[in-house]
């Protein structure tokens, strides 16, 4: 009998069907669930904030003719050549290895088309990616796969990755079926083995070492390019202050909703804090040091729309970064691949097994046949379109608040729909002047 047709059957809130299925899976397989994508649980997010558009007391800008700037300069603190982006929406680090070569190329094509940056990932820099990316951020990760001084000097910025939102305190894993000959060579590893990425950097420990490490990177690159420090959002206030103290030009804070190619589900869902509270913590840390807007703050983790972009910036971010949303724009989880997703036990809209290398869309795979399904030119165009839409949407909201630049958005433009969001974002609950945790009720 179809359970849906019997209203007397009651599903447990505690042991819902997914929970029951996971217990059954764990009992059968004896191993935790590893997957990609980001946190799927509900946490307070930008959806819980609203903008206060202009009215009598504020003056709006015309949406169709009055300028609303979007450009951003990153890394002017120490770098001789800061990064100048046309839009404040960057592409997050995703490795060649996790993604196919054509998918990496598409990210570069899209970013270059709209005047933003893309980022390498835990697997080194590929010539395709460098060639197609006007602004390329080169990550220095604990594994140091493919790290070399030539690529370092070819980069437009360097990002020291301390952690990522999906798994602060965790390393990485690239399962053997994604270690093709080329990936193995780039990482100096045997082919076909399960490759682990360390969770700690091999040659520095703590903020004082980090300061010297950053100085080394500057010396090697003759102080030309900006150096970012990326952290997963946990003790964000302290992490940001220590990153600034260590000399970072840019701090990247990745909330717990940030995506990953392969991590334990329990890690993705239960470690780190959401993006929403991480931003005010980071901004507070920067302001107390007198470094807000001097050291730029890039925020990532759950950016989906221009509203998310505008809200992150209103809370004090200088730019945002997207990962999962960029993959979706390329064609990940697209309905046209639904049959392929179903053939491997998933469905369009649900696919998260990026680690498996069997991606029907050809994006998160090293299988040449699957990768050939993905057209980097078309994919790049879709992502460029999406980036333009994010920008236009954010501009629309900024103009409604009377702002001639996205950077002029401010917390005063926001209210919260829930007490939780009000407390985390440090903006008033809508209809009140109450910010929980600040002042009296």
């Amino acid at each position, binding site marked *: 009998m179809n359970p849906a047709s019997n209203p007397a059957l009651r599903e447990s809130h505690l042991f819902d069907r997914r929970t029951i299925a996971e217990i059954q899976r764990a009992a059968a397989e004896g191993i935790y669930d590893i997957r990609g994508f980001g946190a799927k649980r509900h946490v307070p997010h930008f959806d819980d904030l609203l903008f206060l558009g202009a009215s009598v007391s504020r003056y709006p800008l015309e949406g169709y003719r009055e300028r609303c700037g979007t450009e951003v300069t990153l890394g002017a603190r120490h770098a001789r050549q800061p990064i100048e982006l046309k839009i404040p929406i960057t592409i997050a680090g995703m490795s060649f290895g996790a993604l196919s070569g054509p998918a990496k190329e598409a990210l570069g094509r899209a970013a270059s088309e709209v005047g933003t940056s893309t980022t390498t990932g835990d697997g080194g820099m590929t010539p395709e990616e460098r060639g197609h990316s006007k602004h390329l951020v080169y990550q220095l990760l604990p594994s*140091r796969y493919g790290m070399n*001084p030539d690529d370092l000097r070819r980069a437009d910025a360097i990002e020291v990755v301390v952690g990522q939102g999906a798994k602060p305190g965790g390393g990485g894993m690239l399962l053997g079926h994604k270690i093709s000959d080329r990936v193995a060579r780039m990482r100096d*590893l045997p082919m076909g083995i399960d490759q682990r990425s*360390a969770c700690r950097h*091999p*040659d520095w420990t703590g903020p004082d070492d980090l300061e*010297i490490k950053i100085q080394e990177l500057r*010396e090697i*690159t003759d*102080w030309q390019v900006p150096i970012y420090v990326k952290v997963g959002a946990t003790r964000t206030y302290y992490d940001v202050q220590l990153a600034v103290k260590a000399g970072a030009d840019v701090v990247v804070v990745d909330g717990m909703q940030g995506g990953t190619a392969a991590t334990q589900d329990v890690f993705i869902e239960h470690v780190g804090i959401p993006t929403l509270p991480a931003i005010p913590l980071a901004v507070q840390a920067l302001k107390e040091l007198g470094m807000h807007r001097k050291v730029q703050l890039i925020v990532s983790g759950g950016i989906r729309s221009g509203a998310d972009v505008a809200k992150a910036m209103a809370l004090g971010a200088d730019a945002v970064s997207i990962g999962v949303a960029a993959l979706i724009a390329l064609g990940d989880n697209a309905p046209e691949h639904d049959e392929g997703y179903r053939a491997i036990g998933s469905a369009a809209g649900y696919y998260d097994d990026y680690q498996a290398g069997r991606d029907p869309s050809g994006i998160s795979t090293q299988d040449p046949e699957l990768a050939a399904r993905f057209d980097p030119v078309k994919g790049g165009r879709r992502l460029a379109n999406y980036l333009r839409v994010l920008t236009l949407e954010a501009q629309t909201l900024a103009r409604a608040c009377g702002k001639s630049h996205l950077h002029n958005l401010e917390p005063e433009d926001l209210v919260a729909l829930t007490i939780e969001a009000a407390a985390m974002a440090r903006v008033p609950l809508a209809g009140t002047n109450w910010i929980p945790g600040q002042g009296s009720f």
Partner: protein
Amino acid sequence: MSTTTEIEVVDLSLTPLRELNQRLHDLAGADGPRSWRITNPSGAHNIACGLDADIDVVVEGHAGYYCAGMNKQARVRITGTAGQGVAENMMSGRVTVDGNASQAAGATAHGGLLHVRGDASSRCGISLKGAAIVVEGSIGHMSAFMAQTGTIVVCGDAGDALGDSMYEAHIYVRGAVAGLGADCIEKELRDVHRAELGGLLAEAGVAGVDVADFKRYGSARNLYTFKIDNTY
């Protein structure tokens, strides 16, 4: 290219580090002095990092962190001790430490030879990616952690957890090993290994050491395929 035999002397008590490194970097694919002496290093960090030229650099004294980091081609010699991460991520060339080296010596190095005449501290050759490391003294704990490829030769003893989670690097230790890390085992020393070991000792100029006295350590390869029984 100039082959001048004159030695360029830079006194780090008078010259800013930035100026020294820039002058050394400017030699990449260009003419200039091929032999350098750095005096009064006084433990400064990041001396001669990022070099990419066929030159000789002698650091007369003690160096701080990351001396000769990411080196290419150059032969860098430190007459005193070296701080953390000497020759980290070296690509080619040769780095010699006459004294002792601190933690993470030769970390992630891809190529070239790191020769430590004294001891090297913990995490020597961590995440090694192809370079050769020859230590005449002993090495500290967690050395060769996750070492991928390359060779580590230790004429003295090795600390605890040697070769933890290592891949295909070759480790040769002449003295005692305090303990092996996860998935690291002793392996048979065959002729091919004796040849490799003898060759590296000769290249480093280490005399009076018999290759037959060494034991070889490598990966049991049980961690190569992820399975839950491998969690410790």
